[in-house]
């Protein structure tokens, strides 16, 4: 088929798609959200769980079991990436096995880059800790906190050499953190069983609305998830840059 023929075919298909999209968007319900579940949650969740962040209540309390499955997905993905990118000592065949051209060395970042990025590291850590601890009172929660926390070693890696990344986040600590996060989530669920309720029951004292230590297990699960996510993503970053480390010695 000629290029012009392809263009005509694409134009016809795109025109039809555009008209269909227009018709569909004209039939969207006016006035935003129509369904019942959001309204019910807004009315019920604040008083039932003493939390002002209904999204966190749904994620860690009403649907805590689904979040457990999601953490397992992240864990499996990180384990898979580390498995695929592993390079044992016996497979190291010499200088041509490096991750870049042998005559080009890895350049040091400039001083401006280093200062700016390293000044942002405490900002990232503080913000991540704030998000992890305040998931039940403001937008945030475990996953958001975890991804913000992982930017701290990432900033160090980008601002300095790759060896510093492994020095501040050694493989053993990262694996320990990931396992501790996942185990914390599972054990909080089991603790719900131990005190006589259901698995992942919200058994801790609910506290006063908009306090940091409120909403029961939502805080505990949020902290566990943030630890698991931060350590998991750091593990993935380390397994990618291990090749560069070999050249730097």
């Amino acid at each position, binding site marked *: 088929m000629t290029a012009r023929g392809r263009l005509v075919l694409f134009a016809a298909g795109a025109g039809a798609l555009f008209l269909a999209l227009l018709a569909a968007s004209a039939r969207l319900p006016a006035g935003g959200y129509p369904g019942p579940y959001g309204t019910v949650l807004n009315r019920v969740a604040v008083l039932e769980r003493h939390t002002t*962040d209904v*999204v*966190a209540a749904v994620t860690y309390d009403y649907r805590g079991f689904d979040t457990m499955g999601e953490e397992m997905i992240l864990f499996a993905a990180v384990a898979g990436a580390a498995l695929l990118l592993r390079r044992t000592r016996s497979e190291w065949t010499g200088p*041509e096995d*490096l*991750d*870049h*051209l*042998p005559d080009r060395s890895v350049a040091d970042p400039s001083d401006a880059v280093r200062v700016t990025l390293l000044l942002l590291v405490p900002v990232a850590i503080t913000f991540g800790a704030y*998000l992890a601890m305040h998931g039940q009172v403001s*937008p*945030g*929660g475990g*996953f*958001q906190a975890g*991804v*913000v926390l*992982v*930017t701290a070693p*990432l900033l160090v890696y980008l601002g300095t050499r790759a060896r510093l990344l492994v020095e501040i986040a050694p493989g053993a600590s990262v694996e320990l953190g990931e396992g501790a996060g996942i185990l914390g989530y599972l054990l909080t669920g089991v603790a719900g069983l131990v005190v006589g309720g259901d698995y992942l029951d919200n058994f801790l004292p609910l506290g006063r609305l908009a306090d940091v230590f409120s909403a029961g297990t939502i805080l505990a699960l949020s902290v566990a998830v943030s630890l698991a996510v931060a350590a998991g*993503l750091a593990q*993935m*970053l380390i397994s*990618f*840059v291990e*090749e560069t480390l070999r050249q730097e010695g």
Partner: protein
Amino acid sequence: MSLLRHAILLLAVLSGTGVVATRDPVAQAVTLSFHGLVLSTLFFLHAAPDVALSQVVVGAVVLPLMFLLALAKVRRQRVTRPQGRR
């Protein structure tokens, strides 16, 4: 607020087209990062701040980073073994 939503939606469409139109994969990581940032603003304007927080880091930092690291690994193969199948 509705005008701002439509404007950011249009910007998301344009930046997405820009990602596809960028030819060099390394430059594509940068446009991908900008697209992630625009999407995060879109989520925030639709009253979903939790998703916007995740999207800022995942879409604008982690995804382009994985992209660049994967590119670095693939390019090593192609450069040091030129006699292989291209």
